[in-house]
């Protein structure tokens, strides 16, 4: 009899523990539901504070910890803090259900931070048999190759793109356009810009594609030139006026040539940056479409 009682007692104890752990699981789901609500209502600061407090609880399991890391990383990614996002995406463990998503977003976070080699490393680690995921991976890698301006690598990766899947079709076409653009891109020469500015001040900047700057930069050179000419005519070569205005004119004239050379480099850089920005934007869209 006493043995039976003992058994019942033990059974009830076990049942109460099971119930307790179940309520904890359901609590976790409730907490995640609340976090979803916070993110949906753009209360991202609150969501971060809440997730970090959830993480500090001792009783959370490994998979729950992964979920929390993935959520925190997503918030940072959404708010453009890619260094923190990559830190938390990296913390999501390999066995987690969020592992694949995290790896893709980790790659993109590195791309946005301009760490191309790290992005390549994390993307190459992805191992998937799913056709859509495989195509997405090759799409990301071909985008990365374009950012590296490596057209041969782009060609190898882009061979695997089908141009049929509606999740990726549009962006794949845009990537192809950009690869052609990069192929046909003609860089402007700093030497030509410098020579043109030496002939007529400001013309180099017009050549670089900044006509307004060209016109405004000719004004001070012309004004100083006129005053130098006047001083030379009326006071002679040895006069203080000629020496002051002449040297000022020379400084402005040489500065203008130097400025034209620099502005060609800046314009080239701007064109490159704009292409990179567009490619990054296009790499992000399918990720948001497939995983959100």
């Amino acid at each position, binding site marked *: 009899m006493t043995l*039976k*009682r003992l058994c019942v*007692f033990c059974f009830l104890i076990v049942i109460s523990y099971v119930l307790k752990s179940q309520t904890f699981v359901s609590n976790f789901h409730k907490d995640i539901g609340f976090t979803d609500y916070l993110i949906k209502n753009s*209360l991202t600061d*609150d969501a971060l504070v809440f997730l970090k407090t959830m993480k500090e609880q001792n009783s959370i399991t490994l998979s729950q910890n992964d979920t929390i890391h993935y959520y925190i990383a997503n918030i940072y990614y959404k708010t453009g803090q890619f260094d923190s996002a990559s830190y938390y995406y990296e913390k999501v463990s390999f066995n987690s259900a969020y592992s694949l998503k995290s790896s893709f977003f980790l790659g993109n976070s590195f791309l946005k931070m301009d760490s191309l080699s790290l992005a390549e490393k994390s993307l190459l680690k992805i191992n998937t048999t799913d056709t859509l995921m495989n195509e997405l991976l090759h799409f990301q890698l071909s985008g990365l190759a374009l950012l590296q301006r490596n057209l041969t690598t782009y060609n190898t990766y882009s061979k695997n793109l089908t141009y049929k899947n509606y999740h990726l079709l549009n962006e794949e076409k845009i990537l192809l356009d950009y690869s052609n653009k990069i192929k046909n891109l003609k860089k402007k020469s700093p030497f030509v810009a410098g020579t043109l500015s030496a002939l007529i001040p400001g013309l180099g900047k017009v050549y670089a594609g900044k006509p307004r700057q060209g016109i405004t930069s000719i004004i001070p050179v012309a004004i100083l030139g*006129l*005053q130098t000419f006047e001083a030379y005519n009326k006071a002679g070569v040895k006069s203080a006026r000629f020496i002051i205005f002449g040297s000022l004119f020379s400084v402005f004239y040489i500065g203008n040539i130097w400025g034209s050379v620099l502005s060609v480099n800046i314009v080239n850089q701007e064109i490159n940056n704009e292409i990179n920005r567009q490619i990054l934007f296009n790499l992000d869209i399918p990720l948001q479409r497939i995983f959100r």
Partner: protein
Amino acid sequence: MRLIVRFYLIWIFLCNVFFVKAQRIDVFSYPDSLFNSGNFKLAAVEYERIYFISDDIDTKNDALLKKSFCYKQDNQYEVAAKTLKRIDFNNINDSTYYKSCYEYALNTFLNEDYKETILQLNEMHTKQIDTFNNNNLLVLRILTLNELRKWDEANTSLINYIKTNNIKVDSFAFKKLSKKPGLKNEKLAKNISYFFPGSGQIYSGHWGRGLSSLILSGAFATYTYVSFINGFYYAGVFSGFSTFRMFWTGGANYAEYLAKQKNKDRITKHNKKIKDLIYKTNTIQ
């Protein structure tokens, strides 16, 4: 045996029931304790959770009001005001309505959005809340009107405040308080500098800056004159006159800026006097 099982089951059931009941009654106890211990960020999240879970409108409104307190303590006045705007003002009890409106006005004031504060105070007045005799609102009204440079209205409110609180102020001190701060005319400072370079700066109380402006403008005007006399027309126009014009207009704009700064200082000083009086006679809760 059955009895024992029944006993355990009843025990578990009752425990659960009472535990859940206790949670319902003290829905605000956990976030309140966080708030009292100074953990405002987490308290804000917990208040938001109550707003999320609760079906009762009064509880939801209270949660938002309390959430705004967290942000106010955390010096995030703009976010606090934004939170208060989420309150459902169509279904609200009177005391929460009054508190929310007052908190909104206070947070916009602290956020230096004085126009919004005065709009809120006026709106409260139209909704039959006495903003002229209630101490908290009256103080807020005086300070806001002073910041908005509406001296006469601020003065009427100040007299009201002194009367309702039976504050004894001797006539000399009161005259000092109700006197408008002597402000410089900003446009005048600019315009007289156009007629006579440097005079605007001197008018704003900056002798050194005025004189240096006069000397620089004068030097370039003289250079222009000398260049023209000697036949250096290009030098006269480009190096002389254009530089003179730069100092001339620049000096006038600078005079206006200095006058503005001076006015700002004087307004701050004037407002400080009134703030000091309010702090000394403070009965605000």
